[in-house]
């Protein structure tokens, strides 16, 4: 059978192929990616889009958790300060109920109680990064204003709104308690109780009842405040969970699209060997023919 006397096109095609393989391997090594174009691995390319989305979502949840942590911690420590003040008020109240006190002594206690009242008002109006912590969703408005006409001495200017933030797939976390639930709930108002205690000590009547009222309000506040401790715990455990998820997502990205450098290096080296071999083979076709031998 007569063979094709011009193998050169075939040899050139083979050379081209091995050079192409070498280029592919070199690209993989230099970019560190095995999927540089969707056609390299269409399924992986599509999955990488999804993976990037998951990584982005995960990062935004983690960022939110940091922001929320700041808000919750600020609120939590403010409430601790309020409890401390209320405990001081309670001891003052007990002292004020002592029948042996002189008028000026009682007046002094009233003054101290009024200071505590101001302090609690100020604490209730705490803001964090420009937003009031205890106004519900009306975070641009201070929750409590002094109101001489109100029995509790203050008027609540906020609302009852609670903001929820998504911190995981289908996982919503409430991030605030409105002041109306903490400090001025009907029947359990810290402000009402403080005002009542001041009146009681000042007039030396019903001090014991006023102390009981304040004690009850302080306990109520304490129970409501548990919200913040719980939320902080959830923030912490969700952060841990999401950090683990972050690693997994990164690993998945690696397995989908990262170049296996040792394989790529081997591919490059063998492609270069093939290229060399092809070049040498082609050079052997030095154009010798029978004519050179017929003399």
């Amino acid at each position, binding site marked *: *059978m*007569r*063979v*094709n*006397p*011009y193998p050169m*096109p*075939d040899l050139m*095609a083979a050379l081209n192929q091995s050079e192409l393989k070498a280029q592919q391997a070199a690209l993989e090594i230099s970019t560190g990616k095995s999927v*540089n*174009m*969707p*056609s*390299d*691995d*269409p*399924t992986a*390319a*599509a*999955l*990488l*889009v*999804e*993976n*990037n*989305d998951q990584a*982005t*979502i995960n*990062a*935004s*949840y983690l*960022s*939110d958790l940091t*922001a*929320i942590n700041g*808000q919750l911690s600020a609120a939590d420590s403010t409430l601790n300060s309020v409890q401390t003040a209320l405990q001081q008020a309670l001891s003052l109240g007990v002292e004020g109920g002592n029948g042996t006190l002189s008028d000026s002594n009682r007046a002094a206690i009233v003054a101290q109680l009024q200071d505590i009242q101001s302090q609690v008002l100020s604490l209730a109006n705490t803001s964090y*990064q*420009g*937003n009031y912590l205890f*106004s*519900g*969703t*009306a*975070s*641009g408005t201070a929750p409590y204003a002094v109101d001489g006409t109100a029995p509790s001495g203050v008027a609540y200017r906020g*609302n009852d*709104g609670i*903001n*929820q*933030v*998504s911190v995981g797939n289908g996982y*919503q976390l409430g*991030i605030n308690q409105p002041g109306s639930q903490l400090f001025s709930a009907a029947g359990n108002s810290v402000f009402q109780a403080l005002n009542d205690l001041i009146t009681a000590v000042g007039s030396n009547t019903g001090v014991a009842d006023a102390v009981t009222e304040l004690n009850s309000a302080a306990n109520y506040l304490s129970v409501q405040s548990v919200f913040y401790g719980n939320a902080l715990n959830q923030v912490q455990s969700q952060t841990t969970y999401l950090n683990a998820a972050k690693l997994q997502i990164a690993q998945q990205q690696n397995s989908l*699209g990262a170049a296996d450098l040792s394989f790529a290096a081997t591919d490059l080296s063998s492609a270069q060997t093939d290229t060399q071999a092809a070049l040498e083979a082609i050079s052997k076709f030095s154009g010798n*023919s*029978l*004519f050179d031998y*017929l003399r």
Partner: protein
Amino acid sequence: MSGLFGTLSVAISGLAVSQQELETSSNNVANANTTGYSREVDDTEAGAPIVINGLTVGTGVVLEKIESLRNPILEIQLNQTTQQQSSLNAQLTQLQQLQTQFASSASGIGADISNFFSSLQQLAPNPSSLELRQSVLTAAGNLATDFNTAASSLGTQQSNLNLTVQQSVGEINSLTSEIAGVGQQIASLQNAHEDASTLVDQQTNLIRQLSGLIDVQVIQTGNGGIDLATSNGTALVTGAQSSVLTTETGTDGNAQIFANGHDITSSISGGSLAGTIQIRDEEIPNVLGQLDQLATGLSNAVNAANVQGFDLNGSAGGNIFSPPPTGTTGTAATMKVAITDPSLIAASSDGTAGSNGNLSNLSAVATASVVAGQTPINFYSNLVFQVGNATSNTSGDADAATAILQQLQDQRGSISGVSIDEEAANIVQFQTAYQASARVITTIDSLLADAVNLGIETAVQ
């Protein structure tokens, strides 16, 4: 006994034929690198014998014809495979360009979508922050811009292909005109019973070039002539006449191909022209259409969520993205963020500045089936898969076609290719035969001298 003169004429015929054979070999060697050349062999036969005095004697050698060795079936296969391969290569080049739009998972439209929803998510803990709100608008702007860029690139690619179509048609016309001219020359040579092999090779070569452009079929007419037509019957060359193809701009702004007043654009099924048209009229519009779908679905869903809430000033929310045009086409190219004031993002559900209640509606768009029953990211990742898959498949098909083409060319080479070694051996052979015939003539010459000068010693001068 035919006499010495008879023997002389036999020897001369040998000489002449050997000389012709040498010339044929020499012609082969000279054309060893000519594209499409088919090697020639001399078809010799013994001369018709004559009967003299009851004895049958030979009359030397006769050159019947000089034959070009080629296989017509192989030529047909080569043409068909060239058409397929050219179409696939044309498609592959365009697809490789197209897929660069979708190359990175960390940037581009997919990443922009993720970043947009991420910016909404990060607004949630502090919904009244103007800085965080501005980030949302910036992310929305990046998304719209990347849609615009992608649509624009695809549009540019498409209009460049119109130039390619026009160029290809020009080349086709010039080739068919050349083929018709060569055909005419072949016909007149064959009518004069002369050998038209070289011209046939030339014509074959031109037809092969034409196959690289369009799907052409060779139809044998009588007297060795050929007509050319596309596979759906559009005439390209009829005898000595070539048909001219024209291009006209259609209503969609694309160049349509006309033959004799008929639009043949969609019926072209081979050659680079078919590949170019496939990409221009099918693939690119498909991808553009999907981008438009995605842009429309996203814009509408985000806008619908925003109008459910209240902005920072307590007013009802409006559109975040400019509303898509009716009919969806062109959304990707014209997508814009409709607001510049970050306070207009309607995060609030109760009218207060600090409420984030409506953000959950906006964020829900990311996981809702807002584009053809899929979430925005799913739809986009499917598009990436489609583009990558089409490119990868076309690449595989093009490689396969190239391999087949190479094999066919090898076969053609084994039949028609000139082997220098073979010609060298032949030349030695013909040279020896020539020398032998010459020797015979020399011998006869001296015999004739003897005969003429019977008995008298003479030297032949």
